């Protein structure tokens, strides 16, 4: 394996454990897919698990760099993130706009064009907060509604490495990072409680500051003090704790009554994130746990590897395809929509994500740069070229008013 791939592994996380964490991503994305299809009321918590995993893995990578090289090359970090995330995102966005133009409703096309610049700026979560999308239950008019979480992740990726780069210097660097992550998570919890007591919960649900709790708890368990503590846990004890935590997460996914359940903003999201963080660090640090073996098995791991593209594709596929599959009934239509999403995700992963990330032949050097920018430019051209629909014409019958 080339050196750069070895360096990209989070601090102290072995290959088997990476497979287990991939598997967790697989469970998370399935939960989200089922939730959006109306089959798992708390499946949206899968996004929270994604956040915790991201915080854990990213912080592990940054601390690994800080320990190994004595400094964190921030530009290289951001470039790797961009190569990992942007090409697939741009491809999905471009295809989605075209598909919405062809098959979407007038409102869907209008909102797609409205939201597109915010998606490009990786800030669509704030746009949706301003638009009170949650209050209006308007997600199914927005083909990019699910990309709020990608915006949150990007904003975290921009800010947190700067903090780690400064805090991780020196002898007690990892302890300082752990303290900052823990304190930050508590501040984020306080913000969630405060902002969640509102009629419109979009601010609490999609805010970067409020959802930072999950990312920072993931970051906290990636630091040496917690890693070392986890490593000392005997395997049998770890098995029992992992079993309890996994059951707890599964119950939360099954019984939580949607994204607006008041308990979520009164500490529920925080407890979920904390449980996920402990599960992750035990799976990553204690060798041979049952949880890691199950999560690392073929199916969840395979889904985990597709999870990013699958997450990107599923929502526009649902919105544009499901209304046309009503003859198949709910489960039949959902199965077809998930199947289409899986195929699209597999193609995107195989031909876009992996080659660009691994710098395959066509995606090296200057061509790599083109691979990142070209889909983005295509998105901008499309945004300018697709005519915004005129909405509202013919909706009022004046004769009925006389």
């Amino acid at each position, binding site marked *: 394996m080339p050196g750069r791939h070895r360096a990209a592994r989070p601090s102290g996380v072995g290959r088997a454990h990476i497979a287990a964490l991939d598997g967790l991503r697989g469970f998370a994305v399935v939960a989200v897919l089922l939730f959006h299809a109306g089959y798992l009321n708390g499946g949206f918590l899968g996004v929270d698990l994604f956040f915790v995993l991201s915080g854990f893995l990213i912080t592990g990578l940054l601390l690994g760099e800080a320990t190994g090289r004595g400094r964190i090359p921030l530009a290289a970090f951001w470039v790797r993130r961009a190569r990992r995330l942007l090409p697939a995102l741009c491809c999905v966005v471009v295809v989605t706009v075209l598909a919405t133009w062809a098959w979407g409703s007038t409102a869907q096309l209008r909102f797609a064009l409205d939201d597109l610049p915010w998606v490009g700026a990786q800030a669509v979560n704030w746009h949706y907060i301003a638009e009170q999308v949650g209050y209006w239950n308007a997600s199914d008019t927005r083909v990019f509604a699910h990309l709020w979480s990608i915006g949150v992740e990007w904003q975290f990726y921009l800010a947190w490495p700067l903090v780690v780069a400064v805090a991780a210097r020196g002898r007690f660097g990892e302890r300082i990072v752990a303290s900052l992550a823990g304190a930050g998570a508590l501040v984020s919890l306080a913000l969630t409680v405060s902002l969640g007591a509102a*009629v419109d919960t979009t601010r609490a649900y999609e805010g970067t500051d409020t959802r930072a709790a999950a990312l920072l708890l993931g970051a906290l368990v990636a630091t040496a003090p917690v890693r070392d503590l986890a490593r000392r846990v005997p395997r049998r004890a770890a098995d029992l704790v992992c079993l309890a935590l996994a059951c707890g997460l599964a119950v939360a996914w099954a019984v939580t009554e949607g994204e607006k359940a008041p308990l979520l903003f009164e500490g529920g999201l925080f407890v979920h994130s904390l449980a996920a963080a402990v599960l992750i660090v035990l799976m990553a640090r204690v060798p041979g746990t049952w949880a890691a073996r199950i999560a690392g098995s073929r199916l969840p791991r395979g889904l985990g590897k597709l999870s990013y593209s699958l997450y990107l594709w599923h929502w526009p596929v649902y919105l544009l395809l499901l209304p046309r599959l009503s003859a198949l009934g709910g489960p039949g239509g959902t199965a077809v929509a998930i199947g289409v999403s899986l195929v699209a995700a597999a193609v995107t992963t195989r031909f876009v994500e992996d080659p660009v990330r691994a710098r395959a032949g066509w995606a090296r050097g200057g061509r790599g740069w083109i691979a990142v920018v070209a889909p*983005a430019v295509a998105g901008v051209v499309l945004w300018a070229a697709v005519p915004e629909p005129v909405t509202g014409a013919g909706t009022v019958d004046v004769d009925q008013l006389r």
Partner: protein
Amino acid sequence: MNSKRTFRTRSSRRSARHALSGVAAVAALGLALVGCGGKDSGTRDEGKSRATASTDTKVLWLGDSIAGAEAPALGAALKASGVEFKDSSSDGGGTIVDSGEKITQMISGDTWKQLAKDIKSFRPTVVAYQVTTYDWGSPARQRAAYEKAVGTVEDAGAKLVFVAPPPIKIDGFYKPHEAQMRTAPKVAAEVAGKSGGAAAFFDASQVWGTDHAAQEALRAPDGIHNCQQGAAAFARWFTGTLGKQEKFTPASVDSWAQKSWTGDKRYGNLRCAA
């Protein structure tokens, strides 16, 4: 460090620089587009609106998001009638009643603050408050809030108009407050009746009926708000009723009912026909 490694580092730095430029370009493009404020909308030809006789009436519109879904048409109808209009309805609350529950304490506090600001800046001659779905609490609490509103608006030299809310689908959220929501318009009517002319009560059941499921109620797919046709029907009725009170002539529906307000974003959010 061997030469191979040096080369690789330089190469990766170069590609990193390129890729970083790419990322910056993508973000800059996105931000530039955001900065543009979105594409042009509402491009439908409004035509040259006929000059309307200006009145001295200035209407400040208050209420919750149901009032908000009525506001685009109401604004168009009143402006076409020469009446100044300011929509201060709230998407998510808008109540003036502190029911004793934390949520309405917060909302009503915000509404009162906003009302004070609007009175100062807009100087309305009419403040119209559509009773909201958050006007919870006992009749005594409702009465106290409505009487306070009458006093506040009277002190500002304006008249208060209470507007009854439309019938809505009572879902799980509203169920615990259904009885309180039913008393609120009755209390508002009573307060207006005893105000000595400082306030009036407009009974909107004349336009909506009393059954949310009936065709006449013109509810949006959510059973709570209205779409464009409902907004237009309400605006015609309200403008006519207010015109009688304030002595102005409502503009013909032909002059405003099919204009650009029908493309307001909130109707997209409500899954109304586009």
